[in-house]
């Protein structure tokens, strides 16, 4: 896999006004890069063309339809920061995407800050972030259902209802 992709909320990655230009909001780290067991859940992909699959995996794991914001960095940039990743099964009903999940392991304060800086640089360069709008997310899920990549019953109620009406249209 070439990139690691993380779901974020773009608004948290703008610098705070009235501080130095390169500041990173605390919420970006404590909410968007929230760790469990000092590990950060990310998705892997081979190319930026595969970002739609990551958005699909992320959207299906939720319980309501909203925009999906993602950012990504090259997996090759992690070793220089002393950061390791490990493949773990992803929490998504899309079975062919489960193997594209990774955990970034053994994160301490320095490493999570370094990672946040890496993401912030990429986002602020305007090249490595993408917002999937709500209709785009709906389309991705609908197409996946049509292609039998996931079952409607595997989706949470609100998403299922929205996709069902999309399928009937």
């Amino acid at each position, binding site marked *: 896999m070439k990139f690691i992709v993380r779901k974020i909320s773009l608004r948290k990655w703008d610098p705070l006004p009235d501080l130095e230009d390169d500041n990173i909001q605390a919420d970006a780290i404590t*909410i968007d890069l929230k760790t469990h067991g000092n590990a950060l859940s990310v998705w892997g992909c081979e190319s930026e063309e595969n970002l739609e699959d990551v958005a699909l995996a992320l959207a299906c794991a939720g319980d309501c339809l909203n925009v999906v914001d993602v950012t990504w960095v090259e997996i090759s940039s992690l070793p220089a920061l002393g950061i390791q990743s490990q493949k773990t099964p992803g929490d998504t009903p899309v079975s062919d995407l489960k193997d594209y999940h990774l955990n970034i392991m053994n994160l301490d304060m320095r490493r999570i800050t370094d990672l946040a800086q890496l993401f912030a640089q990429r986002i602020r360069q305007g090249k490595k972030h993408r*917002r999937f709008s709500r209709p785009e997310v709906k389309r991705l899920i609908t197409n996946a259902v049509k292609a039998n990549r996931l079952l409607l019953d595997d989706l949470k109620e609100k998403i299922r209802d929205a996709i069902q009406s999309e399928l009937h249209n």
Partner: protein
Amino acid sequence: MVTYASAGGSTCFKEPNHLVGFQDPNRFVNSGKLVCQYGLAWGAGTSPRRMWEDIAMSVKKVFPDVEILSTINYESKIPSLIVTKNLSFYLRDIYHSWRKACFFSATNEADEESSRSEKHLNKESPNKAPRFAQEICSLISLQPVENGFTHPAEKILMEALANQEEDVIRWIESILEDKNPYLVASVISCLGRVTEKSHPAWAIKIVGEALEHSNVAVRDAAAQVLESWETPQVLGLLSKHKEKVPWLQEYIGKIVIQLSSY
């Protein structure tokens, strides 16, 4: 004044009239149980049973699917609560929520006592936020509103809209002036979600105002709500908006194209 202290493996929550002790939920993650104990410390003018029921109701309201088994020893005046939930990671939320519930309950009891003594039984303080507003703000402070996931504040907001719509409208209008943009953005997102199908005129007006907010997080929340409503009614608001932040400008442009095609 609320103070916190820790003693003997339990954390204590100290109120003017109450001392509430509970065991650290982190110690119960593996067992999937949270055991809480409530003890009456100074007890002036309070009823342990009533307060206990308030706490249980508050926990149930926020987490409707938790199972609450209570064993109350009225003689010793030390009721205890066992909350169980299959998903143990909810424990921390239950713990915080319960602690807040204690706070609200204690505040209400204290208010009642004060009202009785001042013979102002039916008079409410004009500056006091409605109960639903307190609950929503406290839930938002405990758990961020995240895209793709339902937030517990939505349920409170929905109930409040059903029972006291005018109070809700007044409160949400006033929240736009709040100094905390994170709170404003979160309330706007919740409003959008609970009015997704109906999107009444007053909500369109409020979200339209939020779109012109000085903070980008609030404007983004408003733009997402307008997109989710999927109605050309909001096209005018989006078209006339002048956005400076590039990624949000791009997103709003996309919404305008989408809505124009309906």
